[in-house]
């Protein structure tokens, strides 16, 4: 019997070994796979266990956290949610996050290893750091001016500091309150369904995520390319352009909205926005130089990050001469985000230098210590400084005695360009009204602000649509806000 008891005991020992081996398999070998399983709520619980770091505008947080006492404990809150939604995006327990909340998520949620006091500290202590803060470059006065200006309309505003690339305003209207999406309950689900079903797409950040045909504002690029390439040497010399202009190789005739464009000089044509002159100028400059100039401004770059991704603005490089003529006046396949057009104005204002735009000034620990600073980013030259000087002249002319007089600010030098972009099938859609501009106070050494405004539904009456009428006053309000501060 003793032998059999020993054997039975051995059997029990085998059971014990099987349990231990299996426990090691589950807890060590397979642990990562189980922890990474999307149905495992532990990652989410840990993530919402502490308040999220804040997004700061001019030293004041525009976000907050609310203790719900639920399983996913802290929920995001927003002050002035709709105003800053194109900057912050949302941070939802159910639907993920967007924009700054998304691109700075690791820092805000405290998961960023850079927040740890010592390397591998968190792995050792199994703890999570308090969420860090994100300090933005946004100027609250400019942001609010743009938002108020667009209020009852549909459109977007982007404003940058030409000398650094700091983004001063990023507004998209209609907007939404991102706080509605923060939780994981019924309210969030209903808001999510409603916002997604809304035909006006309030969650779309029109300032960076949507491209529009830039229309006449693209003439800034065309003029700069023509000047840089030497196609035009004297701004006041007649350009020998017919009105109407027959697109090369076709029988299509291009006309103008204003009179006096036949054989106009570049200065006159720019001031009064003559399509014919710039279509012809674009064709004369050629696709190579036009493409080079557009790309120097940032067109066709699919990887602009501010730090979230900006939609690619396009200038078609495979065009025939007729298409090039249309592309040169911001039609055909030419498309731009408002931020891209603000960069165009900024390059003119800052002597031809294009600076990568950025939205995050620096990131800090919860205690205030700096984690990283963005600082001015890479600089590239889009045009000769002399070309830039002449472009400034042209743009000032538009505001002083052209289509953009609504943007004039007493006591400041302002340059601008209006645009009215046709779109839709057979150009049937309500045209987009554009205005791009920059402003420099009389006492300033350099331009302080460059801004692009697009208004989608400028007016009910098609005949009265113009960038100068509806978009320019908004641009002026934004520029005044920046110059005053």
């Amino acid at each position: 019997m003793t032998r059999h008891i020993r054997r039975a005991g051995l059997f029990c020992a085998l059971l014990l070994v099987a349990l231990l081996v299996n426990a090691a398999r589950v807890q060590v070998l397979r642990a990562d796979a189980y922890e990474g399983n999307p149905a495992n709520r532990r990652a989410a619980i840990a993530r919402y266990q502490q308040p999220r770091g804040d997004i700061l505008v001019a030293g004041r947080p525009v976000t907050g956290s609310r203790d719900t006492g639920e399983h996913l404990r802290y929920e995001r809150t927003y002050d002035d949610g709709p105003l800053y939604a194109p900057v912050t995006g949302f941070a939802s327990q159910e639907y993920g996050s967007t924009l700054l909340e998304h691109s700075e998520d690791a820092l805000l949620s405290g998961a960023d290893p850079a927040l740890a006091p010592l390397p591998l500290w968190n792995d050792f202590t199994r703890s999570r750091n308090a969420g860090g803060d994100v300090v933005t470059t946004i100027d609250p006065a400019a942001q609010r001016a743009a938002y108020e200006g667009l209020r009852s309309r549909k459109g977007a505003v982007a404003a940058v500091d030409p000398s650094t690339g700091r983004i001063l305003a990023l507004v998209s209207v209609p907007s939404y309150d991102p706080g509605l999406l923060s939780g994981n309950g019924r309210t969030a689900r209903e808001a999510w369904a409603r916002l997604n079903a809304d035909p006006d797409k309030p969650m779309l950040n029109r300032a960076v995520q949507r491209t529009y045909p830039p229309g006449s504002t693209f003439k800034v690029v065309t003029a700069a390319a023509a000047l840089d390439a030497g196609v035009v040497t004297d701004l006041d010399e007649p350009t020998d352009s017919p009105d109407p202009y027959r697109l090369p190789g076709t029988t299509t005739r291009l006309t103008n909205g204003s009179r006096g464009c036949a054989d106009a000089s570049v200065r006159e044509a720019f001031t009064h926005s003559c399509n014919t002159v710039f279509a012809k100028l674009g064709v004369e400059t050629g696709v190579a130089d036009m493409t080079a100039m557009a790309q120097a401004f940032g067109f066709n770059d699919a990887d602009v990050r501010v730090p979230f991704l900006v939609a690619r603005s396009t200038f078609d490089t495979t065009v025939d001469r007729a298409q090039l003529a249309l592309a040169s006046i911001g039609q055909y396949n030419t498309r731009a985000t408002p931020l891209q057009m603000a960069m165009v104005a900024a390059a003119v204002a800052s002597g031809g230098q294009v600076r990568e735009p950025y939205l995050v000034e620096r990131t800090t620990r919860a205690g205030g210590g700096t984690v990283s600073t963005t600082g001015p980013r890479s600089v590239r030259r889009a045009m000769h400084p002399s070309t830039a000087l002449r472009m400034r002249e042209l743009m000032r002319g538009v505001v002083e005695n052209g289509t953009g007089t609504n943007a004039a600010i007493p006591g400041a030098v302002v340059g601008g360009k209006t645009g009215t972009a046709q779109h839709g099938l057979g150009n049937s859609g309500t045209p987009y009204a554009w205005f791009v501009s920059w402003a420099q106070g009389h006492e300033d050494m350099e331009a302080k602000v460059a801004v692009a405004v697009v208004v989608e539904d400028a007016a009910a009456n098609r005949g009265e649509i113009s960038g100068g009428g509806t978009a320019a006053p908004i641009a002026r309000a934004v520029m005044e806000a920046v110059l005053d501060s």
Partner: protein
Amino acid sequence: MSKAGITLATADPPTPTVRLPGRRGIELTLIVLAVLLSVYGYCAVGLARNGSLPPGAAGYGAGLGVLALVAHLAVRWRAPHADPLPLPIGVLLNGLGLVLIYRLDLETPGDPAAPTQLIWSTLGVALFTVVVLVLRDHRALQRHTLVCAAAALVLLTAPILFPAVNGARIWIRVAGFSIQPGEFAKVLLAVFFAAYLAANRSALTYSGRRVWGMQLPTGRVLGPIVAVWLVSVGVLVLERDLGTSLLFFGLFVVLLYVATGRTGWIAVGLLLASLGAVAVGRLESHVHHRIETWLHPFASIEAGEGPNQLAQSLFAFAEGGVHGTGLGLGHSVLIGFAVKSDFILATAGEELGLAGLSAIFLLYGLLVERGYRAGLSLRDPFGRLLAVGLASLLALQVFVIAGGVTGLIPLTGMAMPFLAQGGSSVVTNWTIVALLVRLSDSARRQGDGGAVR
């Protein structure tokens, strides 16, 4: 070698007549350690959750300490030669179970279970004390074989008359307390099996016909035991408590093997077990479902229905890793239903890690080993079979439920001995420990060449 042998032989002292030292001092030290560890766990939960010592810490420690001390004094008085390990292991596992249940109570404020469990633990220790005091010689049980069998059958069949709870008819609800009579039946059946096999051992081994090289016992000898076993298993299948029926089956096969030494029994047992498993798996939809869940624990996630309990349990174990999250800092409550009973081990796994879980497994292993050791030391066949049976009962139970919640075998509902919420289980396990203490005491006295013979 021969020299050593000679030396040994000559140096071998005469049979020791001195009384072997009692080990009650060791036992007391270990009990104090077990109580301190439990109180430490209780405090750790409070510190982790609220940053302060929980208000009941002193009371909890004192209560557990008094209970353990009473049990210790009973052993010291009436079983002075007993193995010093089983009682401290029982105290530690019971104390740890209370800590885990208290910790889970914090997540479910509306449904506290720790106070009830404490009452049952008190009852369990009381029963332990009674058994140690009253049962002076384990062979007294041998005289009540048939009473045990009858009582076991009554206890097993009683819940059929009561409404089903969560799909299983294994509970009786009396005055707010749920009793699981099947738990008590385990001990009674183990006693019956041991007694019957001890009495008919030679008949089972040597009589009967030989078929295919295996010695089959006569129907007259085997009849009653198979009948009792069939009835108990049949009742359990009717009650849909497959874990317990698996347990009885395993116990039966182990005891039969130990009693007769016939490997054929293992073959027959495995054959019957697999036939039964296939049949039940085919016929019973919920058993089939359990097997499917075991094979594909994440199928419900892929189907978009969210993680099932087994998946949540695996997540909890995985979160623990090697060191665990620390008491009070895990999220095993996500398992939901039965988190304090069948799935209690997941909380231990998550918050104490592989290190803590291994320690718990080793504690069970040690308890089982002490049982087997008592079985080896005892001289009378009944005592040997009873010790082996009780130890195997514990081992199988731990394997079935721990293997189930860690995905080693299909999950069958069963209480983790001492750890899990469940009064009947705690009381039963204290009885088992009491019997092991008594058996080990007898073993020492027998080995001592003492009065018992």
